[in-house]
C-alpha cells in the first residue's frame, strides 16, 4: 500500500489508527526518535514508546494531542540534548499521519501542514481557520451546528510589558492548554495571533454548545496562573457568533464574533457576549459618526453659544460660558454628550478644543462690557504642554485681556500626571487667566483637589441646585458654598431654573448663577441685544 519511497524517505513517517496505535512507521521515524527499529514499533502506543526521554510536560502535551483530532506540532526530547519535532496531521477517517522532521530535512517537510500550525502553542493557526471556514462554505446550507468563539486574553499586554515576553509566551501556552481542556474533541482550537484565539464548533447544538464553552472558559481563565515564580491573573473576553443567527455565510462569522468581543470588552471584560444584529448597526453608526466628526471642523459645522452668568451681589451679567454646538446637515444638532467622548477617544478633541479657545477669545473681544468668557477644557488637552501655547496664542491673536478668560477644568484633569498638569495650570494662571473647577460635587469632590491649586471659582453641578428642595441636598449645598467662601473662591451655581433657587443661592452666599432662570445659551450675535435688555430690566428686578 505504501510506496517504497516512503519506506526510504529521510523524513520520519508513522501512521496511527483510531486507538492511537502505530500501524506503520518507516525506518527514518525509528531513527529520529532514537528507537531500535521501525518494525518493533508496530502495535505500540506512542505514549509508551516515543517518550523514553521526554519531560513530563512533553508527555502531557503528547497525551493531549493524541485526543485532539486537529493537526498539531510538538517538540519531544529523544536523548540528552536532542530534541525532535513531531507534526501530527488531522485525523482523517480515524487515521492520522505523524511526521518527524529534523532541521536538515526541513526542505522535504510537508509545508502545507507546517504552514497551518502555530509554533508557540502547537495549535492550528489562521491559515487553518480559513481552510475550515472554506470547508463549511463548501458543505453549504445544513450547518446550523456551527459557531465561532473568539477569545482575547485580558491584560496580556500588561503581562508582556511588566514580566517580559517569555512569561507572556508561557501564559499563552498554559491558557491554550486550559482552552483545550474545556472544549469537545471535535471542536477546533486555533491561535489567530497575539493573544487572540478562536474555537470553531461544527458539531454542537447551538447556541447551547457555544454558550457552555464560553461560560466555562471565562471561569477557567480568570483563575490564577503560576509562571516563572509569579502569580498571574489574566482572564478572557469572548465574542460568539452562531451560523444562522445573523448570517448564513461562514465567512462573516469572525467579523460578527469580533463585534461581540468588542461588546464584551466594553461591558467590563472577563465575560462573553453573543453577536446581535444591533451590534453591527451600532458599529456602523459609530463608524459613520466618527467620519463625520473628523470632517466637522473643516466643514465649519461647530459653533459656540454663550450662556450668561449673573452676579448675585449686584444682578449684573458678569460673564458667559462658551458652549459648543455641532450642527450636521443630516443629523441635525448633535449633543456634546454624544460627540465629546468620541472626540476624546479619537484625539480630535485637541483640534476642537483649540478652535473653541480661539473662537471664544475672538468673539469675547466684540462684547461691549468687560464680561469674562468661560471655556471648557478637556482633561486630555492637559496631557501635553501644547495647551499652554494654545491659550497664549489665542490671547495674543484676539487681543483679549487675560483676566477676561476663564478656563474650566474638571476634577478628572487632576487624576493623572498631577505634577505636569499642575505646571501647565500654573503657566496659564501666570498669564493672568482664571482657572475654575467645573462640575464640583459629582465626581470625587476631593478636598485635596481643591487645596492643590488656587482655583478662582468653584462651579457647583446643577444636580445639587435642582435637588435643592430636600433638606439634605440643601445642607450639602450650603456646606459647599461655605467651603468656597472660606477658601476664598467664588462660587457659581449651574442649572438655576426658578426664582426660589436663585434667592436660596443668594441667601447661602453663592456669588454667581447660571441657568434658564437667567437666560438660555444664545448665539454670539444676540448677546448685544440681551445685554441691552438686561440693563433696562435690572432696575425693575432690584425693586
Amino acid at each position, binding site marked *: 500500500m505504501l510506496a517504497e519511497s516512503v519506506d526510504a524517505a529521510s523524513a520520519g513517517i508513522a501512521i496511527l489508527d483510531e486507538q492511537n496505535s502505530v500501524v506503520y512507521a518507516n525506518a527514518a521515524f525509528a531513527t529520529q526518535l532514537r528507537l531500535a527499529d521501525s518494525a518493533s514499533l508496530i502495535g505500540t502506543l506512542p505514549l509508551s514508546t516515543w517518550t523514553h526521554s521526554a519531560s513530563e510536560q512533553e508527555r502531557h502535551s503528547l497525551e493531549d494531542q493524541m485526543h485532539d483530532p486537529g493537526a498539531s506540532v510538538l517538540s519531544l526530547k529523544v536523548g540528552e540534548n536532542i530534541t525532535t519535532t513531531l507534526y501530527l496531521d488531522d485525523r482523517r477517517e480515524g487515521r492520522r499521519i505523524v511526521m518527524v522532521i529534523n532541521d536538515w530535512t526541513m526542505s522535504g517537510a510537508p509545508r502545507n501542514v507546517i504552514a497551518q500550525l502555530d509554533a508557540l502553542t502547537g495549535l492550528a493557526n489562521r491559515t487553518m481557520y480559513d481552510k475550515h471556514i472554506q470547508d463549511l462554505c463548501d458543505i453549504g446550507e445544513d450547518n446550523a451546528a456551527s459557531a465561532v468563539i473568539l477569545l482575547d486574553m485580558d491584560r496580556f499586554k500588561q503581562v508582556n510589558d511588566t514580566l517580559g515576553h517569555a512569561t507572556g509566551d508561557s501564559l499563552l501556552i498554559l491558557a491554550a492548554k486550559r482552552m483545550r481542556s474545556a472544549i469537545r474533541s471535535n471542536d477546533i482550537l486555533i491561535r489567530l495571533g497575539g493573544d487572540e484565539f478562536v474555537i470553531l464548533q461544527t458539531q454542537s447544538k447551538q447556541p447551547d454548545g457555544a454558550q457552555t464553552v464560553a461560560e466555562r472558559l471565562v471561569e477557567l481563565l480568570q483563575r490564577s496562573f*503560576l509562571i*516563572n515564580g509569579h502569580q498571574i491573573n489574566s482572564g478572557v473576553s469572548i465574542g460568539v457568533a452562531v451560523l444562522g443567527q445573523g448570517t448564513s455565510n461562514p465567512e462573516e462569522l469572525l467579523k460578527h464574533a469580533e463585534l461581540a468581543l468588542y461588546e464584551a470588552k466594553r461591558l467590563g471584560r472577563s465575560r462573553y457576549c453573543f453577536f446581535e444584529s444591533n451590534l453591527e448597526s451600532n458599529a456602523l453608526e459609530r463608524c459613520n459618526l466618527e467620519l463625520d466628526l473628523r470632517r466637522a471642523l473643516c466643514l465649519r459645522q461647530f459653533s459656540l453659544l454663550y450662556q450668561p452668568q449673573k452676579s448675585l451681589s449686584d444682578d449684573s451679567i458678569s460673564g458667559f460660558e462658551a458652549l459648543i454646538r455641532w450642527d450636521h446637515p443630516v443629523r441635525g444638532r448633535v449633543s456634546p454628550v454624544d460627540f465629546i467622548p468620541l472626540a476624546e477617544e479619537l484625539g480630535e478633541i485637541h483640534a476642537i478644543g483649540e478652535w473653541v479657545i480661539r473662537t471664544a477669545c475672538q468673539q469675547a473681544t466684540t462684547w461691549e462690557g468687560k464680561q469674562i468668557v468661560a471655556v471648557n477644557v478637556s482633561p486630555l488637552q492637559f496631557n501635553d504642554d501644547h495647551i499652554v501655547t494654545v491659550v497664549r496664542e489665542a490671547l495674543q491673536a484676539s487681543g483679549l485681556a487675560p483676566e477676561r478668560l476663564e478656563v474650566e477644568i474638571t476634577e478628572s484633569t487632576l487624576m493623572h500626571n498631577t505634577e505636569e498638569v499642575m505646571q501647565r495650570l500654573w503657566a496659564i494662571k501666570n498669564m493672568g487667566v482664571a482657572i475654575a473647577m467645573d462640575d464640583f460635587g459629582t465626581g470625587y469632590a476631593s478636598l485635596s483637589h481643591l487645596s492643590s491649586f488656587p482655583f478662582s471659582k468653584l462651579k457647583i453641578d446643577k444636580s445639587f441646585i435642582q435637588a435643592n428642595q430636600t433638606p439634605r441636598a440643601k445642607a450639602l449645598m450650603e456646606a459647599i458654598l461655605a467651603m468656597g467662601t472660606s477658601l476664598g473662591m467664588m462660587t457659581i451655581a449651574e442649572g438655576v431654573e426658578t426664582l426660589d433657587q436663585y434667592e436660596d443661592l443668594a441667601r447661602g452666599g453663592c456669588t454667581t448663577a447660571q441657568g434658564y432662570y437667567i437666560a438660555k445659551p444664545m448665539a454670539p450675535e444676540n448677546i448685544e441685544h440681551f445685554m441691552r435688555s438686561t440693563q433696562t430690566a435690572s432696575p425693575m428686578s432690584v425693586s
Partner: protein
Amino acid sequence: MDNMLYRLVYMSRNNITDDDKLQEEISDILDASQRNNRQAEVTGALMFNTGCFAQVLEGPHDKIQDTFERIQCDPRHSHVSVLAFDRIDARLFSDWDMAFVGQNAQRIEQFARFNEKSGFDAAVFDGDTVYQLLRMHLEEAERV
C-alpha cells in the same frame, strides 16, 4: 524554570454538595494525589470540609505549575484563590497529608480516617499565619 523549591497555598470552594459523595471523592483525591505527586516530586497538605478546600503544595517550580494547572481545570471545585506562591528553603511536608477541618462532630468522626490515613500533623504549621488564616476560612465556610 529553575529547580528551586516553591510553596503554593490556595483555597477553593468545594462543589461536592453531598456528604457521601464527598467521602468518595476525597478518597479518590487522596489516592490520586499520593500517586501523581510522588511522581511529580510534589508534596503537601489538603484541608477540607463541606464548604471549602485549602491546599498547600511544595515542590520544584514547573511541577507545581503542572499540578496547579491540573487542579485549576478540576470541576470538583471553583473560585480558586491563591494565598501565597513563594520560594522556600525546605519543605514542611515530606509526604501527602490530608485533614478534615470543621466543627460538626459527626463529620469530624466521619472524616477522621483521612487524618489518620495521611498522617496529617498540624504541628508543622504551628506559628504559621497562613495556616491560621486557612483554618479560619475553613471554619467559616463549613456548611453546617
